[in-house]
Each structure stands twice: as C-alpha cells, then as structure tokens.
C-alpha cells in the first residue's frame, strides 16, 4: 500500500467509527459524556500521526478521538470509555475528553491549552533523558488564545524542545468565529515566528500535504531543531459538541464548501486506480468502510456488554497508596 492509501484507510476508519458513534450517541443515549467529534477533520490527525514513530507521544484537547485512533489508541478501550465502562481506557472515569493510551503514548485533556504545556514538558523530558522521541500536541484555533500557548511556545523555543505543535484551525470556538477572537490578518503560524519557532500553514484537509509537512517538522524536531508549529486549516462537519450537523455551516451556506473540502472525499479522488491494482477506488474505500463498520460494531457490542465500574471502587486510585 502507498502512504496515501494507508492514510486514506485510516481516515475512512476514523470517519466510520465516529459516524457510527455519533448516531449511537444521539439515539441510544448510552454514552453520557460530552463528546466532540472530529468528523471532517480526519486529515490533521492522520497526516501528522503517520509521520510519527510508535514511541513518539501525542497529546490533544477535548476533540480527541481522531488523534487517539490515528496514534494507534485501542478502539475497544475508547468506545468502552465513552460508555463509562470499567474496560474503558480510563476505567470509565475520564470520558470522551480524557482519553489515554499509555502503550501508544497518547493522552487528552479537557481544559483548553493544558496539554500544550504538558507536551512541552514531555518533549523536555526526552531531551533530559537523551532520547530522540518527539511529542506532538493537537489543539484548536481557540486554544491558541490561551496564555499557556504563549508561555509554552516561549519555553519550547528557549530550550529547542522536540515538540510539534499542531493547531487544527477549524475557524470556530464552539459557535464563535475566528474573527470574533483573533485580530484580522493575523495567523497562529506567523505568531509562532515571534518566538523564533519554525512554522507552516498547510491545508489541513489535504492529508498528503499534512503528512509531508509533518515529516519535515518531525525530522527537524528529532534533530534538536524544534519546536515546530503547523497550522492546519480544516472544517468540522458536526456541531461543536454532539452528533448533529454543524448549524453554523448550514446557516452560513458553507455546507458545499465543507463537503467539497472533505478530506476523505479529497483523498479518495486523489487515489488512482493504478495504485489499487484492479479495484476501483470507490470499491476499496467501501471495503475499508465495511471493515471499520464491523470493527466499531464489535467495539460497541463489547462496550455494552462490559460491566460498569463498581461503586465500591469510587474512591480507588485518588492517591498512590
């Protein structure tokens, strides 16, 4: 498989998983945890994570499913977590905004900007320990307004830390457009330059472009020439939190633009049948979708069947004993 094929397959998988979960979230109401889907934004997670090694670390904010899965996080553990089950990746205690998978070096937090600092810290630890691991941190355009972004960028640049800051700019913070929050004519990637940080603006719905930019950024970080900031423009197709189509998009008559810019559609179009042997792209994508449907179906069944944590464990694990 070509890199593009691998990435498309992963995007199709994430899209399929999230779409299935979004429907169940809406209809069954068994996942009682505020959930921020990445539908429409898959290329950022997939393009960046495909440029990382398994021992590299990834952090994200509240919109965490796509980076979690792209980094190789356990699907069953994620779905169980959304269902609040004992088998969840955080034992059902963290929910959608606190996914974690230590085996693949992934973790997400709910407060805007927090993990920008945490990821800067793990990158610092890599340097202290003499390892060449890189840390990538996903955060939104909104999180970039928090002071912790500035403080972390300053620190990362001061110590040349191997941290790749990935700003997923979807143009909104909940319902608030960028124009209501950041000065016109300015960008996050240019702001990074003020700290001497290398940066680039990339179409975040073009998974190959994201991947290529990330490969270069990771290379620099791994050689001690970090940090690096990637600003990736993208669009979310569902509402900020929850399963419904994004109303701002509808009202703004942006639906078309969004669909046309959909990273899955675009990557599918880019696939030449040549790459696929005798199969047509549509059929291949379809097969991947079916595989992912099966995968998420099993994960949901397992999650449903799994036990809730016993209330007798309510107080367990607050402290190291």
């Amino acid at each position, binding site marked *: 498989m070509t890199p593009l094929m691998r990435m498309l397959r992963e995007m199709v998988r994430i899209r399929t998983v999230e779409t299935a979960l979004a429907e169940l979230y809406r209809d069954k109401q068994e996942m009682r945890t505020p959930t921020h889907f990445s539908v429409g934004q898959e290329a950022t997670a997939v393009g960046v994570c495909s440029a990382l090694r398994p021992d590299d670390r990834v952090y994200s904010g509240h919109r965490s499913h796509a980076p979690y899965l792209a980094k190789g996080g356990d699907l069953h553990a994620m779905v169980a977590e959304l269902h609040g089950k004992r088998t969840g990746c955080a034992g*059902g205690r963290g929910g959608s905004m*606190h996914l974690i998978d230590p085996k693949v070096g992934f973790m997400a937090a709910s407060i805007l900007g927090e993990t920008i600092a945490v990821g800067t810290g793990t990158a610092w630890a890599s340097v202290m320990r003499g390892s060449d691991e890189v840390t990538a941190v996903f955060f939104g355009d909104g999180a970039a307004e*928090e002071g912790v972004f500035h403080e972390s960028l300053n620190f990362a640049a001061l110590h040349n830390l191997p941290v790749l800051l990935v700003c997923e700019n979807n143009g909104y913070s909940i319902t608030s457009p960028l124009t*209501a929050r950041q000065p016109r004519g300015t960008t996050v990637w240019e702001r990074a330059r003020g700290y001497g940080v290398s940066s680039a603006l990339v179409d975040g719905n073009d998974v190959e472009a994201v991947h290529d930019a990330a490969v270069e950024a990771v290379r620099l970080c791994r050689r001690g020439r970090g940090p690096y900031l990637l600003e990736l423009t993208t669009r979310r197709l569902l509402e900020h939190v929850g399963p419904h189509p994004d109303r701002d998009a509808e009202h703004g008559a942006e639906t078309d633009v969004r669909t046309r810019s959909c990273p899955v559609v675009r990557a599918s179009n880019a696939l030449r049948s040549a790459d696929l042997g005798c199969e047509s792209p549509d059929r291949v994508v379809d097969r991947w979708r079916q595989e992912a449907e099966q995968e998420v179906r099993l994960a949901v069944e397992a999650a449903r069947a799994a036990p*809730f944590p016993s209330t007798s464990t*309510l107080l367990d694990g607050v402290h190291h004993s």
Partner: protein
Amino acid sequence: MRELTYAQAISEATVQCMAADPSVFVAGQNVDDEKGTHGTTREAFEAFGPSRVIDVPNAENAFAGIALGTAAAGMRPLVVHTRADFMLLAMDSVINLASKWRYVYGDPAGVPLVMRGVVGRGWGQGATHSQSLQSVFGHFPGLRVATPATPADAKGLIISALQGRDPVVLLENRGLYSLKGEVPEEAVPVPFGRGRVARRGDDVTIVAASLMAHEAERAADLLADVGVSAEVLDPRSVRPLDGGLIMSSVARTGHLVVADTSWAPFGFSAEVAAIVAENVPGALRSPVVRVTPPDCPAPVSFPLEEAFHPDAERIARACLTALRLDASEFRTPRPITAGFSGPF
C-alpha cells in the same frame, strides 16, 4: 406572582440592570450565540446587541483583568464562565487583584467586577466540568460569593451584584436552570449575607446551598414521612455567610447536617460546622454530619457519577443518623436526574 425559570430570572435581571445602567455589559465566551449560556444571555443580546453582549476570546486570566480594568474605569462588567472550573485560570486576577483592590489601594470606588460561573452537573460532566468552587472563593476577604438556589434569588442576587461596588462571584448549578419559581417583576435586590429558611422544622437543621437546598427540601419530605421535622436553611451567599440564622436554628433543633456539592475538607460544610463549634457548641446534641461528594475527583461513568453526587436520600439518612433513628425501613426515593438530559 408569575413564575419564571432560574435561567429566565437571570436573563430578566440582566436585562433590567442593563436597561437601568448603561455601564453594565455582559461578556464571555459565546454569550452572543443562539443558546446564550443556557438562555441567560440571549434576551440581553437581542435587546442591546453586540456592543453590550460581547463574545470574547478564550483567555480567562487576562479577561478577568480586562474586565476589572473596565470596572476601574467606571463600567460594570458581568463576566460569564460557561464552567466555573475555567475560573481556576483566572484566580490571579480574581484573588490577587480584584478581591484586594478596595482594601489594598484604599480606593473607595472599588472594582464592581461581577462573575457568573456555571457548575456542571450530570451527563458525565466529569472532574473538570462540575466543580463547585464556593469554598475556594469563600476563603478570600474582599469577594462576595453567592450561590442562588431559587429563581427569585438568582434574580435578586445578580441585581445586588450589579448595583453594588464589590467584586462578586455567582455560582449557578446547571441543574437549576429549568427550575421554576415565583419571581418579582421589579428589580429588587436580595442582599448578600442573609440566609433563607427554605423549610421550617424543629428536629434537625439542614444547611444546604444552591442545588443542595432542593435536595435538602426533598430530604425534608422524606423525613416528614417518618415523622421527622427538618428545617432547611439556604445561606444564599457563602461570603458573607449568615451565621446567625444557622446558630439560632441549631440552638433550637440541636442537630446539624450540612449538605454541599463541594468537598468536605476545607469546604462549606467545614465552615458551617466551625461556626457552630465556635459559637453554640453546647447546642449540639449529636455530632454534625457532613453530606458532600466523596473525597475524589468527579468520575464520568454513570453509576459512579450517581454515587458521587450527594442527594436527598443521603441527606435524609444523615439526618436520621444525627437523630439516632433507625434508617432501615426508610424508603429509597426515586432518583431525579438533575435538570439536564442529553445528548449534548
């Protein structure tokens, strides 16, 4: 009197204060959108537009300082936090500057910075979206900290805040927004520091703020079934706290249960117990019982979440414990799912 929901009462208070005083403005993340912070800022936006109901960037710390600056220059900001937890980012401006301003600078004008913080509840809000910070803010002199439980108090306390000259933190439990109650049409302030007797009773005193006042009233219903008459006191503000009301009730009942959504250690329940121990310890005929979340962060998983949040049943059982009565044949009440139901 006509009834309003808690959210409508907040909205009405805001609109009335803005109409009466052109220096009042509302600011916060997404306050101008259709949902309008659970319907509390929408009417104001419609009435006064984007120049007085202002969406702001995600920058809690600076924004507290910015709002403070407008207050220092004669404005009256009403800052809305969609979760009180986010105010932990603004602690420096609130504690190190706002709460101390009037005293430290000897500035009689003070800085009337009013902050609303929504306390999340239910639907797996989890550890960082459901914290009740009354005990933290309550610790610091210079602040007023209110926890309205009823629509009328929500309205009246906001009015007090927006007419006063002190920095104020208002904590609103999301479980309350759809709650209905009688609310006066006029803009009548409810003073800080004066508690409310939510229910008269003789056998045991329950002190409970915000959402817990309602759980305490439900507990009083349950207790009435087994012949126990519970008095429910809602402090309305925790700084200043109406110690007098609590003391005189306990002096009469001899038993004290404190129910709160914030943790017990160094919490609201500690302060209420301390006030009694300090002033009328002889009145206590049984140990004080604190009904609070267990000493852990709030979990998301549904059964854990249900076990985490204190409710009427736990309060009622605590009262029976205080009264050394048998709780074995006590009927378990139907759980109410507080306010919100999903999906998000």
